[in-house]
């Protein structure tokens, strides 16, 4: 019964204070929308980086002058590494196979036809069990005489680093933006509550004089903040849903690899929606809580 009364009081206040309430609600909407767009995007980038990292193979280029026994020696080493679990698998790719592979990856393979001879060396493509252990695998293969002196062993160190740098940048920039927006939302909700208290300061005075306790006066304001937060978040979730079914889902349909599809749906929408609505409520509660501490000293 108390709860109903406090809600009625909060709604009365929101109505009396409509313009500011709407402003605060819209800020929450924007912040939560961006948060909601960022979380899946970030998870998508993150899982892309992870799967790229997993796909980072080690390429050991074989010198043209290597003898068959030297190449077999390298092969024995790889077998040993595979036996102790460091290497998941390896394949020998001859120069011709390498060229075909390249042809497959190029958008315009015809330029390869103009080559006078095959410039590619033969190589072993090694898939490490754990990409983090690439360094050790490379170190143990390095001294084999079969390895081409100039080309050596190539592995995804740099590529992985670059991807990670990009991912980290996106992460920090996103977190920064979201923090700013959330703080702005909290402040705007706080401002709404402050104006609301200000508009009703005479009423608050009277309420105190007829024996209302502090919390009896505070609760409606707290609820007012939470309601603004919840409405803003709910609208943002609705908007995100609309974007998901119109833009993202179409894009996933068009995406060719199953992997992309899995990554794009790394977080279930209902879970995301719940998290966002909860964050809206928290923003609202924080905004009004902070303001009440400062402006409703009773």
């Amino acid at each position, binding site marked *: 019964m108390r709860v109903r009364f406090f809600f009625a009081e909060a709604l009365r206040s929101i109505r009396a204070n409509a313009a500011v309430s709407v402003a605060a609600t819209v800020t929450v909407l924007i912040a939560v929308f961006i948060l909601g767009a960022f979380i899946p995007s970030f998870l998508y980038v993150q899982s892309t980086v992870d799967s790229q990292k997993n796909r980072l193979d080690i390429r050991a280029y074989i010198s043209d002058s290597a003898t068959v026994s030297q190449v077999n020696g390298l092969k024995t080493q790889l077998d040993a590494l595979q036996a102790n679990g460091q290497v998941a698998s390896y394949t020998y790719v001859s120069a011709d196979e390498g060229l075909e592979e390249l042809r497959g990856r190029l958008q315009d393979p015809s330029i390869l036809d103009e080559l006078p001879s095959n410039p590619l060396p033969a190589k072993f493509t090694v898939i490490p069990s754990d990409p983090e252990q690439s360094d050790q695998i490379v170190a143990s293969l390095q001294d084999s005489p079969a390895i081409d002196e100039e080309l050596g062993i190539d592995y995804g160190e740099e590529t992985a680093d670059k991807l990670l740098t990009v991912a980290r940048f996106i992460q920090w920039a996103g977190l920064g933006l979201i923090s700013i927006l959330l703080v702005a939302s909290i402040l705007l909700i706080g401002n709404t509550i402050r104006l609301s208290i200000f508009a009703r300061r*005479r009423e608050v005075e009277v309420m*105190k*004089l*007829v024996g209302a306790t502090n919390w009896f006066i505070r609760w409606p304001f707290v609820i007012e903040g939470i309601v603004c937060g919840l409405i803003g978040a709910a609208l943002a979730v609705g908007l995100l849903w609309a974007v998901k079914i119109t833009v993202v889902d179409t894009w996933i349909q068009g995406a060719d690899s199953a992997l992309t599809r899995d990554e794009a749906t790394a977080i279930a929408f209902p879970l995301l929606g719940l998290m966002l609505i909860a964050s809206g409520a928290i923003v609202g509660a924080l905004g009004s809580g902070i303001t009440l501490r400062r402006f409703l000293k009773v």
Partner: protein
Amino acid sequence: MSTDAPSTPTEPDTPSSRVRERARRRGESLRSSDRRSVLRPGDGPMVILDGVSKEYTSDARGLDDVTLSIESGEFVFLVGPSGSGKSTFIRLLIKEFEPTAGSITVGGRNLQRLRRSKVPYLRRSIGCVFQDYKLLAGRTVYENVAYALQVIGENPRSTRRKVPEILALVGLSDKSDRYPNELSGGEQQRVSIARAFVNHPRLLIADEPTGNLDPETSIGIMQLLYRINRTGTTVIMATHDREMVDKMQMRVIALENGKVVRDQRQASYARADS
């Protein structure tokens, strides 16, 4: 305590002492429902002021060394020219601020020792009619009166029962959906009285409840307060309405420059020239 019924204004039919006793008991049972009252039960003095002074600033003195006591069930006029300290007296009783010196006891409670968190409970046990009504502007007459019950956690059903009852008592049944700014001063004053009395406090204080009202409305309000007093409620009424005080012949406490210059039972506004 005054025993004689006043000459005028008087209730339409003078209640017999039996009726009065019943009303008093009903009042008591209603009061006991407010379990969180800070006022101690019993028939001792309702208000005791002991050497109370209130200085707003070094040169603005509200009350100056006031010592007096008011018994439970009394009807007291607090008279004096404007600026004599009547409102200061009343605001001290609901602990709007602390006295500069002296001690105040209300219903057996020393207000100095009353914790801040208990002040709301003190105010619920005192009905206060404010000089400027202090109604909630955004609420109807009904909602204003109901608020006093909602504050004490009254359940909605008994709120729906009690509010129309008290509005009928103050003669505002037909105006319960009006907003304060749609009412005359006298009507707002009566809403303020209804709100102060709806939870049947043991002490009702009214700060110039007939100030700025026409004589007829004033008499209506006076009758209402008198009737409330007859239910056993202690009533303190600040006023500078000479005619009214003279008619009622109740205890009169006269203030001047914050000092009690006279405290007399069954008295008139001015000192009776002997």
